[in-house]
């Protein structure tokens, strides 16, 4: 992580919805910097607005207030340099693994041969070699999540947004996917914004952790995690941080 280079600046972002005749603030005045090649974890209880925040950064929703700057320039709407791994996977059931992974390149209009080559590289990277022709419904939860990750990487983004990508996996698969995402990040250096509601996962993966309060989502605290990687969740320092973060975390509603 290079703290001297701000990759993405989130400046005073708020998002509200009108529900019935009330206004619901999902996130309120959220500001933080994301450094180049950083693994930044956004940690918060359920319903605190984590998905809303990522959707705003990914350009899927227009915020009611605030601005976003990528490499110092303001961005509006979805930007090619930002890719998303969706919380609900969002793999297209009518496409094979290969077709799902190459989707971003297909949209860009990259010719078939080139995009297959690039997609293959990331399919191999997430260890799905041999499953190119399978349909999502034939894959396990962990494998589907890998497809989502490969799809996000394939369009060669500078920033990856990952919304609780391991939330629906069993504990065992979750641990191995955590290890793996860390390896992928070390091999293919990108800036990652990783959303989770799991404290251990946050400390295991994050260079920094942004802790959000419960709704309306605001930034409560930012932690620097300076432990060497790969981290050990039994390590006394790990446990100390965990205790600190845990005591500071709001309970979900």
């Amino acid at each position, binding site marked *: 992580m290079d703290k001297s280079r701000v990759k993405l600046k989130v400046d005073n972002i708020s998002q509200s919805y009108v529900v019935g005749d009330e206004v619901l603030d999902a996130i309120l005045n959220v500001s933080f910097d994301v450094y180049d090649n950083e693994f930044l974890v956004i940690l918060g209880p359920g319903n605190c607005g984590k998905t809303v925040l990522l959707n705003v950064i990914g350009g899927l929703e227009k915020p009611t207030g605030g601005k976003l700057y990528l490499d110092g320039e303001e961005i509006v709407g979805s930007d090619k340099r930002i890719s998303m791994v969706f919380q*609900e996977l969002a793999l297209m059931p009518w496409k094979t693994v290969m077709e799902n992974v190459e989707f971003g390149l297909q949209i860009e209009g990259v010719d078939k041969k080139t995009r297959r080559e690039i997609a293959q590289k990331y399919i191999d990277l997430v260890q799905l070699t041999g499953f190119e022709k399978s349909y999502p419904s034939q894959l396990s939860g962990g494998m589907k999540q890998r497809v989502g990750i490969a799809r996000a990487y394939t369009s060669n983004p500078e920033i990856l947004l990952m919304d609780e990508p391991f939330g629906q996996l069993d504990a065992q698969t979750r641990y191995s996917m955590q290890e793996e995402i860390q390896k992928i990040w070390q091999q293919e250096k990108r800036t990652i914004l990783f959303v989770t509601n799991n404290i251990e996962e946050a400390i295991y993966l994050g260079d920094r952790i942004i802790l959000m309060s419960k709704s309306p989502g605001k930034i409560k605290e930012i932690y620097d995690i300076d432990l060497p990687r790969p981290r050990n969740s039994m390590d006394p320092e790990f446990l100390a941080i965990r205790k600190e973060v845990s005591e500071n975390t709001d309970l979900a509603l």
Partner: protein
Amino acid sequence: MIKDKMKNMNEEEKRRYRLERLYKILPVISIFLLILLWSTVAAKSDFPSPKETCDRLMLLFENPIKGKNIFGHTAESLIRISIALLFNWTFGIAFGILIGWNKKAKALFTPLFNGFRAVPPLAWIPLITIWFGTGEFSKIMIVIFGSLASVVVNTQAGMLNVDQLYIDVGTSFNANERQKLFQIAIPSALDAIFAGIRTSTSAAWMVVLAAEMLGSESGVGFLIVRGMDAMDMPLVLAAMIVIGLVGALLAIITQYLERLMCPWTRVESN
């Protein structure tokens, strides 16, 4: 413990295997019983027996009606529905996509279309006959009117139900509206579109018979009416059986086509 479990599983598997076999045999038994019942009834009344019916069908080859044997008449009917369906699949799917995807088109056309749909297909026959006479064109028109709605309704439903999540994936990759339509919305509606293709095919087969029964010189619908007029019960029965078989065959073909075009649905059902 583990051994017990395995034994249980084996029992369970055996039971399932036996059931599977039973499920395969039962349909054969039921058809056999039907033919048996039919033969018994026929032997005790003047209802034609299976053999007489079959012979009547064969006789058509030596003694064609209006110059055509059973294959000739079936082909006539099939050509009529093919032309009508080709038209419906082209324009019905396009129209369904339009009113399922474009909010303005939906608001504009849905009331008109619902009005059209509310009139049962057969009610169109007199009007079409007055307009176009009783020729080939008007028969095809009747079939078009009779099977258009199911194509449009299913296509529209499929397009209205496109999951926002997939559209979001498109947005996140900067897809334009055209790409969202052709690469996300239509493919995701494809199984609904195929449901429309299947129902429109069976509807067309039903309506073409009605059209042929109301004045025609060819087709299976004509054969059945000819049988009725001539009090030729074996001919009526033979035509009925052929109509049933062709109907079943059409259902199988469209289903096969769907599996070919939507391979992922086959995967899911496995």
